[in-house]
């Protein structure tokens, strides 16, 4: 970029502020742009240049996260033994030793409250039936009628485990670290940091829905931590009138006034630039204002669903009260990735079924089943699924034993997640829990294996993403789950 770049388009006519005048971005993250512009120190370590480490399978990610802990047992991991031995304690069942004498029992768990959670010993039968679906014949619970039609696109991982037995596992699921270890960059932030932008008009990492509460990691679940706030997820509401934080000045400044201000600002900054020809920060700031202005226009446009057909809206369940909210988020997620947003994270809360699991899960699953299935369908129709990785996860599963009379407690020892699209092999159930659905038993995967898999599909080697002064532990990197890759 020439030292007097602004001359190439300085003194531009008014009202043209938002148009590109040859100084647009070239598909790089702002961080790497600064590096390119010499803000990063010579000879020193430099941030990623926006290029993947190897050929990517996926370009973008839609990440659904069920806040509170979805029962794997009533979703993707059927355990007939629970019905057979219902009412017996774990110890009384023939699988007692396999569970309670397992080398994993209590060993990995770091108790959030300082004391271990009680074992829920009395086996609780499955609250819903299962059927096999698709060519693969993978069983899915009857609470998921829509998603089960897509089972041949899904790779279900039934052997996830984590180490926090309380809801700060929400943070852990996204950063790979127990909350006792503090905050670390979230998976979305890593993707954003490594790859940057596919679209200059939109934020690259967007979250929708209510994030975890402060107890449980809060916005750390999409935080940038030491990568910097610029890599953190930007929370967005689905309201087209005001979707971004500080996204509009409200009624106090009119559109025309804002345009006038921005025109003036551009002129003045350009004039000041004459005095500071080598000021890379100034150039970056001018660009940031342009991006902000474009974002303000582009983001509400994404939220406006007028152009979507009724059939499409119906596909997402938007016409029904139960599925409207998530349906809208999922549809917006599609519109975002369509426009090149790298990472969309959707939170859905309320799954913490300590009691009345049946009522809780039947209604919460209903809330997400059709929207997520609709999204898969829609992505497929539009040929986007190949390059869009859809991930569904939750912080932990739920206990095989009953809590009180009709609930299940937190269960970090074994639970399920699934992936689809983006170079993932469909119709596969990978890993397994034991007969009671207690411990992840085969092909165990700590949460960062999911991260490594996502990064791998994006063409990234998590080991190559490290920032000096922030040494990562081996467990932070995870291992890509190669068995589920197409």
């Amino acid at each position: 970029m020439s030292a007097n770049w602004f001359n190439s388009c300085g003194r531009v006519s008014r009202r043209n502020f938002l148009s590109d005048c040859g100084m647009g971005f070239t598909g790089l993250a702002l961080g790497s742009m600064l590096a390119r512009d010499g803000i990063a120190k010579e000879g020193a370590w430099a941030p990623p240049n926006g290029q993947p480490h190897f050929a990517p399978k996926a370009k973008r990610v839609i990440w659904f996260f069920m806040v509170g802990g979805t029962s794997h047992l009533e979703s993707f991991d059927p355990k007939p033994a629970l019905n057979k031995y219902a009412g017996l304690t774990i110890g009384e069942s023939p699988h007692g030793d396999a569970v309670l004498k397992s080398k994993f029992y209590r060993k990995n768990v770091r108790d959030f409250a300082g004391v271990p959670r009680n074992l829920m010993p009395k086996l609780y039968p499955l609250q819903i039936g299962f059927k096999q679906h698709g060519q693969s014949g993978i069983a899915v619970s009857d609470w998921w009628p829509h998603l089960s039609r897509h089972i041949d696109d899904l790779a279900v991982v039934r052997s996830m485990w984590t180490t926090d037995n309380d809801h700060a596992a929400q943070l852990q699921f996204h950063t790979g670290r127990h909350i006792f270890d503090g905050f670390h960059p979230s998976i979305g932030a890593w993707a954003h940091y490594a790859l940057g932008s596919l679209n200059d008009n939109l934020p690259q990492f967007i979250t929708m829905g209510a994030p975890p509460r402060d107890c449980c990691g809060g916005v750390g679940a999409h935080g940038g931590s030491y990568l910097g706030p610029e890599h953190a997820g930007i929370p967005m509401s689905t309201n087209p009138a005001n979707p971004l934080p500080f996204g509009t000045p409200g009624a106090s400044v009119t559109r025309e006034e804002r345009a006038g201000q921005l025109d003036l600002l551009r002129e003045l900054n350009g004039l000041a630039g004459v005095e500071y020809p080598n000021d890379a920060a100034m150039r970056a700031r001018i660009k940031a204002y342009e991006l902000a202005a474009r974002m303000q226009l582009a983001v509400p446009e994404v939220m406006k669903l007028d152009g979507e057909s009724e059939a499409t809206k119906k596909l997402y369940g938007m016409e029904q009260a139960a599925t409207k909210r998530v349906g809208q988020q999922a549809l917006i997620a599609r519109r975002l990735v369509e426009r090149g947003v790298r990472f969309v994270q959707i939170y859905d809360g309320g799954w913490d079924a300590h009691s009345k699991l049946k009522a809780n899960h039947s209604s919460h699953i209903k809330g997400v089943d059709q929207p997520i299935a609709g999204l898969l369908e829609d992505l497929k129709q539009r040929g986007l699924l190949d390059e869009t990785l859809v991930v569904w996860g939750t912080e932990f599963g739920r206990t095989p034993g009953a809590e009180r009379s009709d609930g299940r407690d937190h269960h970090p020892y074994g639970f399920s997640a699934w992936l689809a699209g983006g170079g993932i092999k469909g119709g596969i159930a990978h890993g397994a829990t034991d007969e009671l659905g207690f411990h992840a038993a085969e092909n165990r995967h700590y949460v960062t294996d999911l991260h490594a898999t996502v990064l791998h599909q994006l063409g990234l080697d998590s080991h190559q993403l490290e920032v000096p002064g922030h040494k990562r532990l081996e467990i932070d990197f995870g291992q890509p789950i190669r068995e589920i890759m197409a």
Partner: protein
Amino acid sequence: MKATWLYIGTLLIPLATDAADYLRDIKPVLKARCYACHGALKQKAGLRLDTAANIRKGAKGGAIVTPGKPADSELLYRLTTKDLEERMPPEGAPLKASEVAAIKEWIAAGAPLPEGETAEADPRAHWAFQVPKKMPLPGDAGNPIDVLLADKRAARGLKTQPEAERTILIRRLYLDLIGLPPTRAQLADKRPWNEIVDALLKNPQHGERWGRHWMDVWRYTDWYGLGAQLRNSQKHIWHWRDWIVESLNEDKGYDQMILEMLAADELAPEDPKALRATGFLARNYYLFNRTTWLDATIEHTGKAFIGLTLNCAKCHDHKYDPITHVDYYRFRAIFEPHQARLDPVPGVIDFEKDGLPRVFDNHLDIKTYLHLRGDPKNPDTNRVIQAGVPAVLSSFAPKIAPVRLPISAYAPATRDYVQRDRLAVVEAAVVAAKKELDAAKKKAATAPKENPKPNPKPIPKPKPEKPATAFEVKDDFSKANPKLWEVIGKGWKFQDGALHQTTATRDAERLVLRRPMPRDFELTCRYTHTGGSTYKSVTIRFDVTPDRKYANYVYTSAHAPGPKLHVAYERGGVNTYPAEGRVSQPIKIGTPYTLRFAVRNRLVNVWLNGKSQLAYTLPDRKPGGRLELSGFDATVAFDDITIRSLPTDVKLAQSKNATTRPKPANSVETLTAKLAAAEAKVVSLKAIFAAENLRHKKSHLKAASLVAAKREAEAVKAAGEYELLAAGKDAKKVKAAKTKIANAEKKLAAVAKGAGGYTPIRAAKKALETPAHKEAQYPTTYPETSTGRRLALARWIASKKNPLTARVAVNHVWLRHFGEPLVESVFDFGLRAKRPLQAELLDVLAAEFMESGWSFRHLHRLIVTSRAYRLSSTTAGADAKTLAADPNNHFYWRMNTRRMESQVVRDSLLHLAGVLDTKMGGPSVNPGDAVRRRSLYFKHSRDQQDKLLKMFNDADHLQCYRRSESIVPQQALALSNSKLAIEMSGLIAKKIEGEEFVESAFEILLGRKPDSTERQECLKTLGELEAEAKKEKKTNPAQRARRGLVHALLNHNDFVSVR
């Protein structure tokens, strides 16, 4: 190893190689993987691998290479063996096959020595480990900063830029020294530079500005936890923040600041002002894990004060620096005994309200062990680690000497103000009890004589109230009737002919009748419980006093385990649910009920759906109070209500509890007992304090303890006696009171035999060591000595012989004036930190700093009066050769442009708008748009951070030795759209007076005048904005346009930039 490379995808595969080159192919591998243990720092097994000659020399046990014979070479065996006990390097992956192959080739080729290879230097010779010295400067050379920089520039032919414009300079200085931009008058200040500098350095806002910088470095954070449970840092840690600000404002020596932060409890145990400094340590408190807590303490004491990454030696010897694994645990042993607690502050007894967070040595004999591979579950208990500083710099370490503490330090209950404050509370209770008793006596004297003994039965017939002036209220709730009802709360809605409470809440959302109620009345209300969370109650209160601490009420509850109908009452804010007033009823959600009740004096009769349910006599009445309808944890639909005076001829059923009328809590007899109990409490507390004060005189303590025990038991007994009277017929309370008296009597008997003790006063609050602990299990006094370890550490750090301390501090100060540090790695001055380009300058400043009595004010003055500080930041018109030779300004031939820190951005907006609240110090405030205090007073913790500040790289509360300066679109959105920016723009625009609006706005916001083009552009925009506002029919279009212009200028690059 010359190679031909084949590219396959992104993989590079060597196709063919010839002989390996030692310098190119082998040395870098050895350096990365082997030097840490076999180099200049350490020679494990007597082996050094840092030169080819040393490799050939071999280890203690003999040669490791046999030139020409790779197969016989121990080195290759050790690199390739499968035996993990023997394989080198012991940590991490083995060397790659290609690396081993290169070494093999080199040995095969006879292990040739390269020319002129020199060994690694002795780590003790590292530049930063030498005491900084002032290099001699020529006579009256002027500011040493300029002399030294000029020297270096001259050697490279670099030419400086001219001095910046005066107004730009003044803005730079204001933002740097007080963190607020200058006013127009201040920009026009004609005083000499020195005078402006001195005035700003003495401005108390200077302490706030630099206090925030040091809060970054020293990791200030407010507490976080779950509910009231403290998990990290300390409540009221702001006391430490105030200490920082005050210390800077009084120009306390940095050496003294270090002593106080690490060891004020040992250095000045009776000085609460100094004790605040130990917030530096208390901040690291972590409920869940002591090792995490101590690791943070060690890491950040090392990084903040001496620029050493001690944390790298937690699991093994430091890879680069001469710090051993044992050194780490020696350092840990310094801190091992310490814990955190809240000390009482004068005038406050409740630690939730205030307290002084501080540290103290609690476990004097606790042992420190080395954790094998850093695993706290795997301590090496064979060897106790002694406290000490890293051996390499220990030559000037003072001896550790235990410190005897004064009684006020280890027994906080002996402090004057603690005793005064606690006595004040019980003495106030005496005064109140007296007043109550006097009033009761007066009433008893004037009131018609009551039967002295409770009437067996029936209670005297209440005198009929004056014939009803036909009080009647009817409402069918078909629409709002504000004349009749005051509606409080948001959940109320009229629909479908009923009044709905739509939110289930425990807040006092209620309907209040606006009419005065007769004493005797009858009420009929039809309603439906429509939902709710736990209690699901519908409550009708009467006799409600204005303070709402007194009421009688009737309610129905659909609470799942025990639905019921209940008459209950509230006295002094305490609710009583008498068993006699309760009837189980299967109240259901969704079923309409008709509740009727009649009240005659104290007697209440209740009917549900026309069926008589209950008769209950209230303990007393206060007729004339309000009537209120509400839900509690419930949503309700009220269909209609009728209230009327109770006709005298309506017969009411007598209650069963009428005969068991309790002695009124306000009888003379009861209140006399109450006063006696209050007085006994004062006597008891005084006796306890007398005993506490003798803690250090063991000979007198026994006798005083017995007296205190006796007085305490007497006070308990007196309290029991009062409670017995006040309990009336409440069996539970009667039993509790009797037990209390019996226990007190037992205690008195023991005391008479010379046994027993008093309950000591818990005047301080120790932070729990683990979540499993309870505060009550900790003693109320603390050890009488402190180990003196932290004081010795502090003296070592603050010693003029310590080569690191002054350098590290000066580097931080320089960074914040120039935007770039002299040593890039601001928290690591270890071996990886290369000698900086301006090493002499750093040394001169460090030496000068120490000589000045570690005066920050002196250091700031030296820096901001230098010519280097005053240079222009532009590169326009710069000497082309200079620009080419030093584009990154390593030689300070111009000033660097910096961005305001987040706090400065916000504070500047408020200040320019004239609304900044300049109140200093005090508790941290919740972030938010409406706050007008300076940003450093915001709560800043893991769970709380101001949104706007966060956008502009607020300090990371975990570690912030240097703020990052990101530039992201969200900042643009925040400055252009936030409520704060828009509101302040309006206020700033209003403040600007006179004709020259554009001129003034430019000066105020950007610190300079506009040039003619800028002026024109602004005027043009002003005109357009005004026309627009007129078109849109906005009020005061001219002012609105001005706001628009100011707002645009706030978003100008040069507003957030310090030029």
